[in-house]
């Protein structure tokens, strides 16, 4: 499936948290101590391109940096290095008015349907606050605007005057989606948007996402730890581990011919309803703390195929098939 031109481009994105050595410890260092900068590289030199009307699934486990990357994509976090471009233009070089439009064009759907809504705002206010604030609609059109939005996301219009705690989990998810749609975005970043929902509600909300994609020509960056969901929705899949991208490709390629050992491990654990008991042969080892990532390839302590080279040299993302890239030294052989 060929897509149109790139909508959002992240190049060389790096985001770190923590602090450098403070003056007192720097002094102690001069006297022989060895205090180091305490940084966690949540996202380390990541490139990501999402084309118009595409759904990209971003997959990984805790500490992989997918949530951070999602926030970098939306602009909630400022990167320490790298550029973010919208329709080919670097956002840092955009004039104020264009920048404001860009901000509204990229919206986020959050994971926790409870915490992502202000408990003291009625549904109608939550949804219409931003468009009124930005002058997209007149204050007098509040109710009718809210009604049309509610219809789009499948909420009954009578729920308008209620408070978030009077909605169920699935309804709160829909409310969050309505709030994001109120500013006419083109790009939605869904950060584990269905993770907290029951299976039957999850199906409803995923169907809503697909319907909105078709009706409103939306583009998605769908962040999830659930490969089953990603497989269903995504055109392309990007897999992250400890701040780096380890594999990316189309959905078909990744699920049929996963290349990186970590991807293979994830696929082996993918939730599937089976008819014989599974004999679990899981990946060994704990997910390392992002504070002290292993040297070289981050995955080598847990990788069944690790070689000496993997402990010293971080593998680069290389194209192993058209549109399919993987960062593994095993691909260099042969």
């Amino acid at each position: 499936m060929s897509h149109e031109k790139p909508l959002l481009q992240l190049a060389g994105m790096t985001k770190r948290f923590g602090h450098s050595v403070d003056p007192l410890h720097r002094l102690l260092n001069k006297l022989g101590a060895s205090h180091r900068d305490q940084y966690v590289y949540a996202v380390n030199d990541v490139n990501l391109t999402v084309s118009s009307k595409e759904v990209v699934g971003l997959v990984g486990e805790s500490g992989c940096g997918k949530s951070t990357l999602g926030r970098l994509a939306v602009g909630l976090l400022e990167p320490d290095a790298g550029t973010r471009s919208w329709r080919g233009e670097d956002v840092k070089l955009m004039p104020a008015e264009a920048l404001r439009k860009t901000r509204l064009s990229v919206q986020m759907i959050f994971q926790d349907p409870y915490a992502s809504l202000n408990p003291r705002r009625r549904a109608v206010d939550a949804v219409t606050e931003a468009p009124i604030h930005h002058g997209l609609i007149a204050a007098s059109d509040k109710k009718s605007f809210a009604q049309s939005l509610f219809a789009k996301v499948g909420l009954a219009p009578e729920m308008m005057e209620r408070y978030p705690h009077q909605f169920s989990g699935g309804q709160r998810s829909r409310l969050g989606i309505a709030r994001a749609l109120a500013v006419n975005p083109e790009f939605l970043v869904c950060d584990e948007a269905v993770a907290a929902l029951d299976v039957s509600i999850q199906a409803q909300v995923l169907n809503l996402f697909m319907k909105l994609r078709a009706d409103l020509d939306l583009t998605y960056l769908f962040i999830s730890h659930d490969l089953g969901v990603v497989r269903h929705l995504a055109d392309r899949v990007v897999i992250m581990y400890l701040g780096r991208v380890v594999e990316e490709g189309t959905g078909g390629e990744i699920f049929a011919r996963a290349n990186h050992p970590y991807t293979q491990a994830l696929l082996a654990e993918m939730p599937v309803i089976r008819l014989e008991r599974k004999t679990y042969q899981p990946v060994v080892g704990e997910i390392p703390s992002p504070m002290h990532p292993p040297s070289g390839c981050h995955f080598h302590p847990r990788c069944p195929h690790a070689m000496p080279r993997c402990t010293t040299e971080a593998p680069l993302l290389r194209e192993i098939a058209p549109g399919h890239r993987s960062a593994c030294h095993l691909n260099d052989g042969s």
Partner: protein
Amino acid sequence: MTATTQLKVENLVTEFVTRDGVVRALDQVSFELRAGQIMGLVGESGSGKSLTGFSIMGLLDAPGRVASGRILLKGQDLRTMNAEQLRQMRGNRMAMIFQDPMMTLNPVMKISAQMIEAIQAHRPVSKQVALDACRAALAMVGIPSPDERLQAYPHQFSGGMRQRVAIAIALLNQPDVIIADEPTTALDVTIQGQILAEVQKICRQTGTSVIWITHDLSVVSGLADHISVMYAGRIVEQGASDAVLANPSHPYTRGLIRSVPAANPPNQPLYQIPGMTPALSQLPKGCAFSPRCERSTQACQEVPLMTPMGEDHIARCFHPYREPLGLMS
């Protein structure tokens, strides 16, 4: 492996006394668990699955109470016991693991202290003997260098490690039954795989029975020998995993399996069960699922009884499906 019954729950009814009247949170829940068996108790939020675990353990707080039914642990009815007898049972003959391991682990006590306490509460042994038992339990759950780990505090562990420690504590007194309430829901899939492997191994080795409470059908399908599906406080389908998953008879079970993304062709709308789970205080008359069911008729105004669907397979439905679902390989 013997086929003795470890735990038998008969017609368990749990009620909550609220301002608006008495709400029946669990209605006629029954199941039987044999030695070394793993039973998956599956349901969504509000189905009563966690409540079943708490009711069996006797951990219900007011205004909830077990109203009727029998809970037979190796033949002894737990409901006839007084508080002191129950306390001796808990942690000893039956143990519980919670979703959030910090609920089990005291953040200001070392692991060794907590584990030794769990042992000494039920057996008069010396600290040294207790420590040996702790080391053995930690090794059983696959924790390397147990001596180091014993001296650590819970916050020094990752989530997966903490859950393993919680399982180890549950195993310390070699209980007959372990009730695990969504223990891997909050963990990453690769770590979840590790924990499931350990639990599988332990059950096969020690003959402990496990009730694994979860909303995740795929986990129970890989792990459990038996499945009980709950909806609105009642068990609606029960039986051997293969039977229930290959031929789900109750429309709710069938709908649930069909809603999973893996069971649908990619990029097509997922099958979704229409409507919402009813609130327990406003259950419909008769079958609680009937408002959402495409097969419901006038007969469904009565609560259905369990109907046999095959060997070791029953469903609480007047119009069950009888054909296999045909989705799985």
